[in-house]
């Protein structure tokens, strides 16, 4: 579809590229956000890349929405979308256990063994489509179709931070504890959000993620290393 400018009040507008989840669209959204960070349009204060659109916050004292919209569409025309520069993270997952609340039930629903389900979840390369909802919450695309699962009828009141989830066609690395109706397979020792860390947010939109299973003993070793302030996992491809 043709990109559209949608009004979002008197201090924001939305550049909408699609109504659907689409990797190519998401790459353009992220590229537009990066372009505005590298070469700012005066008056633009902040952007929020999402699956399919970019929310652009502006100061009406510096630029009017009527002028900003066309400037953003013009920027899209000359956008340089470079694939392959994204960081790749190998994310260790302790499947099952206390946080993998839905692993057994999901395996039954999918008529496979828990090990088969884990292998399938770990076989895909996921893409961070956006960070949103809560601080550092990672929305992933790339979930294998057999793992698409509707949300639970009744949300749980508290799901632990660092839980590995599935909601519909989407996958997640949760960041903070909170209520959720998603299904959870396990947890990662990685900490997606730590406000005290120099880089509070581990992942950013456009990153790629591969999950791999680790034993409880290995997860405990990683927990301890992280608690000592070590960084045992770094992205394999630099941005």
């Amino acid at each position, binding site marked *: 579809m043709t990109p559209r400018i949608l009004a979002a009040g008197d*201090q*924001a*507008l939305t550049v909408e590229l699609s109504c659907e989840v689409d990797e190519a669209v998401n790459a353009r959204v992220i590229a537009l956000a990066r372009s505005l960070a590298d070469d700012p349009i005066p008056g633009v204060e*902040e952007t929020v*890349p999402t*699956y399919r659109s970019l929310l652009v916050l502006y100061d009406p004292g510096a630029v009017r929405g009527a002028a900003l919209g066309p400037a953003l569409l013009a920027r899209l025309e000359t956008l340089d979308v470079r694939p392959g520069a994204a960081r790749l993270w190998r994310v260790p997952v302790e499947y099952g256990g206390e946080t993998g609340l839905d692993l057994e039930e999901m395996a039954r629903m999918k008529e496979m063994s828990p090990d088969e389900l884990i292998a399938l979840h770990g076989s895909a390369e996921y893409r961070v489509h956006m960070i*949103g909802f809560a*601080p550092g919450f990672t929305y992933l695309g790339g979930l294998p179709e057999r793992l698409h699962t509707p949300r639970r009828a009744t949300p749980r009141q508290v799901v632990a931070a660092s839980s590995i989830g599935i909601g519909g066609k989407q996958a997640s690395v949760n960041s903070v504890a909170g209520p959720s109706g998603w299904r959870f397979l396990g947890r990662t020792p990685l900490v997606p959000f730590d406000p005290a860390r120099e880089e509070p947010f581990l992942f950013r939109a456009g990153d790629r993620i591969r999950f791999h299973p680790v034993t409880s003993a290995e997860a405990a070793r990683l927990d301890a290393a992280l608690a000592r302030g070590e960084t045992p996992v770094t992205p394999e491809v630099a941005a």
Partner: protein
Amino acid sequence: MSALLKIRRASPMLTVQDRGRRGLLHAGVSGSGPMDPPAFALANALVGNGPEAAGLEYAGFGGTFEVTAPVRIAVTGGEAQLSRDGAALAPWESHELAPGQVLGVGALKDAVWGYLAVSGGIETPPVLGARATHLRTGLGGHEGRALREGDDLPLGETAIGPCLRLRSPLPRGTGPIRVVPGPQDEFFDEAAWAAFAGGSFTVSATRDRMATALEGQEIRAAKGHDIVSDGTPLGSVQVPGSGRPIVLMAERQTTGGYPKIATVASADLPRLAQTPSGGALSFTRVSREEAEEAALAARRALARAIDTLAPKGSLQLSSEYLLSVNLIDGVVGPEAAEP
């Protein structure tokens, strides 16, 4: 050792707030900050603080407070009941508070959110660039939570200065709350728009710093109530499947999957935030340009209110007031004043 603000009794929704976080929406962190930014800014200005200083926000009633060094304090937001050692004080002006005196911040009569500013500002450690408390994720403020009896908050260096008052109340606006259609206005047909912009709503009791829920006629989205999640600006009016609109406020989620029929004009958002639960609201559509003009006018009105704060007591008569009065009658006579 720095001066302390000691919390003797606390309302359940008493939090440290500053102007809020900026630049982290892309990481899922909404700004937080005050629900009524102009009232918060005036509280700071009344005690001689800069706009970046942190103060306290409360809902309904505030609590009781003491300090360990002499300060100026001010309470804004609405018609707040305020006392020092039991003697009533006026809101919307600053007062001295000495160690040993007890400041009582009682109920707001006509508003929801009140602000207590203390000279020097509250100096809890900034988190991600701000002191604002984000309750839902436990960020910022004092241990990321609402304040409780027994909490001690560090205060910054207190500037010496006179107690100040407003020359005239901050204009709040009246009539329907202005909204700019979009970003998903086309999900709603004419009937839905008639119900939204033509109807009357009341503010639900299920309201907090994240969102204000509204009750009234149901709004149906002709194109459905699920969208692929996108960004949620301040003041966006989400319409979930229940058909009951929800206005997203300071502590909102940064992205959401419900269509947003409209966005409240930023000039009218503080008024919406301050409408008591059960209070009536209606909406009117305006263009983005009108809302932008209103935002800039509100900004100018606040700057003017801050620029013209007057010292209490000695300079009760402002120059504006003096110029408005005919002081030379009786010297030259009224006829001579005619051109």
